[in-house]
């Protein structure tokens, strides 16, 4: 590889990408300085992931574009994954691509192959040794023989990075590309990751990454590129930039004033009363959620947050405890029972628990309301589609057509579609597990607003989030779970991001099943 005195590590010129006749990237020119941390920003569906996939050679760019890496130019047509790898580009996919039931070293072998002893047998010792070396050189303190499922979430991301960076010796021009690496990480875990990114940078590596967490971007990135509707609208240094300015760049409008926290007083009437709830990791949780109230749940992974929501939705067995919905005792044996009582759940794992990946967007939005369109002898399809189309607009879901398969939507837009599916039922109690994961700053504000308006109509919401800033700005009250028990409740002036962070993470490393 040539190592001339390039002032750019990667330069993209005239990149266009069209899906099914619809332009997604328009004449994007972008350059990334060697040794910098470069953030790629933009609203949901603005084309960030598509641009990274082009850089990875997974999607071909349209004819005419050029990709130049450390001085070597490739025409868009002749570029592919092999060239990307040879040129020192290393990618970490958003889903990390790790197999949870294999050990760390086996996951390494998935990509680099198993070392063999003379003959055929796999050299397990050799594999462990090389894995340990890769982990050490990336400063990841993990035993190669641990199962990936037993790792903390941030360690999983770090392992994926170490795997991507394996056998990339220090001197060469390595660029690490990360798509939303921190989207589903709690704050302190995200901190560990940012630390690792800084370390890579200090070794002279270049980092390109996508994030919707603007405070994090300002903290770590040297430069940003901003995409809006597939057009690169800004490329500049982060010096002197603040979040409002970035949002303005992303939207092309002045940033909206953050809405005042004034919300209707919580009503005395409880929508949900839980007493002595024992289920999975939960050991006797008491909880009341009143009308007009948004209650947050904070805790580490493994503290039982998601189990709490799933139990309240009839999707996890309640071993002991009492449950009242709207003052009447409720037995929820299935999500169906819960939905009948006016409860809705936006689950944490969208791909596994919410996405009908191959079905059209409009059917995904309709999934909770199919029966209501039965007219007695046939489905009122036209009405159903019209309603779905309307919801797609109301929720600002970016799509070429309501018929687009769900997988063709960008991550944030998928999340909005799942929210739309539930909010249309006007549920009494809205259970939200990481509701704004992967959602851009503007849509996040919109979603928060939707939740506020929803409770203002006399409903209630229970929100689990790893983003404590979100809990602080959204909730009336936050309860903190640790080890399956409720250890604190924060309200009023005590409800701050810092207080939540402190209360959740008193216990150090602990196993991380949720």
């Amino acid at each position, binding site marked *: 590889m040539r190592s001339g005195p390039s002032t750019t590590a990667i330069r993209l010129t005239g990149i266009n990408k069209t899906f099914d*006749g619809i332009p997604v990237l328009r004449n994007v020119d972008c350059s990334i300085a060697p040794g910098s941390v470069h953030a790629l920003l933009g609203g949901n569906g603005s084309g960030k*992931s598509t641009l990274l996939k082009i850089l990875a050679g997974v999607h071909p760019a349209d004819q005419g574009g050029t990709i130049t890496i450390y001085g070597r130019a490739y025409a868009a047509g002749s570029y592919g994954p092999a060239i990307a790898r040879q040129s020192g580009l290393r990618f970490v*996919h958003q889903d990390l691509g790790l197999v949870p039931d294999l050990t760390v070293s086996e996951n390494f072998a998935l990509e680099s192959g198993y070392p063999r002893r003379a003959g055929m047998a796999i050299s397990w010792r050799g594999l462990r040794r090389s894995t340990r070396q890769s982990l050490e050189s990336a400063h990841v303190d993990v035993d190669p023989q641990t199962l990936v499922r037993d790792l903390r979430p941030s360690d999983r991301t770090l392992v994926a990075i170490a795997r991507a960076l394996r056998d990339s010796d220090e001197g060469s021009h390595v660029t690490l590309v990360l798509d939303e690496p921190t989207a589903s990480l709690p704050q302190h875990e995200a901190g560990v990751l940012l630390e690792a990114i800084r370390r890579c940078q200090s070794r002279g590596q270049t980092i390109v990454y996508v994030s919707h967490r603007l405070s994090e971007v300002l903290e770590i990135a040297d430069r940003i590129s901003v995409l809006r509707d597939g057009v690169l609208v800004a490329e500049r240094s982060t010096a002197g930039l603040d979040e409002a300015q970035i949002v303005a760049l992303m939207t092309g409008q002045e940033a909206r004033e953050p809405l005042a926290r004034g919300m209707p007083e919580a009503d005395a009437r409880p929508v949900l009363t839980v007493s002595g709830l024992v289920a999975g990791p939960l050991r006797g949780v008491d909880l009341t959620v009143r009308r007009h109230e948004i209650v947050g749940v904070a805790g580490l992974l493994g503290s039982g947050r998601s189990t709490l929501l799933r139990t309240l939705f009839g999707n996890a067995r309640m071993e002991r405890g009492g449950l009242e919905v709207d003052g009447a005792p409720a037995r929820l044996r299935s999500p169906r029972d819960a939905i009948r009582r006016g409860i809705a759940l936006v689950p944490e794992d969208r791909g596994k628990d919410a996405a009908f990946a191959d079905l059209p967007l409009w059917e995904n939005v309709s999934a909770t309301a199919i029966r209501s369109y039965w007219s007695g002898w046939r489905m009122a*399809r036209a009405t159903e*589609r019209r309603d779905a189309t*309307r919801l797609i607009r109301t929720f600002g879901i*970016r799509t070429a*057509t309501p018929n687009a398969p769900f997988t063709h939507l960008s991550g944030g837009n998928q999340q909005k579609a799942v929210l739309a599916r539930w*909010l249309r039922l006007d549920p009494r109690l809205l259970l939200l597990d990481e509701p704004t994961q992967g959602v851009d700053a503007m849509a996040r504000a*919109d979603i928060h607003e939707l939740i506020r308006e929803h409770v203002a109509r006399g409903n209630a919401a229970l929100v689990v989030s790893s983003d404590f800033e979100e809990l602080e700005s959204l909730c009336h009250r936050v309860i903190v779970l640790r080890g399956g028990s409720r250890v604190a409740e924060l309200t009023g002036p005590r409800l701050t991001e810092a207080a939540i962070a402190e209360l959740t993470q008193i216990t150090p490393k602990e196993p991380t099943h949720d």
Partner: protein
Amino acid sequence: MTDVSPDSAVLPDQAPAPRRTPVAVVGRDRSVAGVIERYGLLLLLVGMVVFFALLPSSGEAFRSAANINSVLASQAVGLTVALALLFPMAAGSFDFSVGAVTATSSVMAAAAVSHFGLPLFVAILLAVASGVVAGAVLGLLVARYGINPFIATLGMATLLGGAIFAYTNGLQISKDIPETLTDLGSLSVFGIPRIVLAAALIAVAVWFVMRHTPLGRHLFAVGSNASAAHLVGLNVTRIKFLSFALSGLVSGVAGVLLLARQGAATSDNGMNMLFPALTAVFLSTIVIEVGRPSVLGTVIGVLFVAVSVSGLTLVGAPSWVSQVFNGAALLIAVGLAGISRRGADPARL
């Protein structure tokens, strides 16, 4: 369908007005590639028809009303079996028992009239009921007890094949099959074979259930993601059960048509009907509504194979060509379905 007018919807006006510049919502993908992807097989079918109709060595015979009717009539039972397979496939399970259930139903009907002297009407009811029972048992095994559908349905097919052989002793049942029934298999109305009309009627009924009832939508939701279907409040166990029960019902009807067409029930185990049905259903996933099985697609798939085989036979291809063509079509359909699914999501970055 591009009814996108946002006005006059019946939703509670709960969500706030759009804050973003509204995104243009256009109709379905009309790019050339999209059209070819969706209608490729249909175009190929039309091409085949035109080709064999114009080819000097086959044209005259191929175009004759007799040939057209014979191609259609010979596919009526096959289409019905494929339609039976659609239900479990939509809900995400394989069903290898449809052929065997069809064969069983046909033996049941023949035995009822021929060996037990029951009236035709009762015999038909019994035959269809046998299909429903077989389907319901499979539904219980798969939906309730979580047995792999692959294994459960193969087991059922083997069991039924054995039972047929035991009962018939390898002989066919042809005595006293009522003419009312065999007429259905051989006569025409207005020049169209009755059995083709019967199959068309069943196709319309299945299409209606798939497309215009909540059950149809539920089947596809379960087939797409069972966990998500459960979490939007669907009773996944019940829906999977129904998919097999309906498959049994339609296979039962297919058995009656088979008897009508052949005039006798054979000791055949029905496995030779399975593969054309699988081929047709897989072909259906690469046409019109790409990525999901459909009734219209299945009809196109059945016709595509039938027309091709008929044409090839008329130009003098040997008889094994039909099997080879079926096998090749199945492999190509499965391959293409895989590619289009992967194309939807080349890498989750």
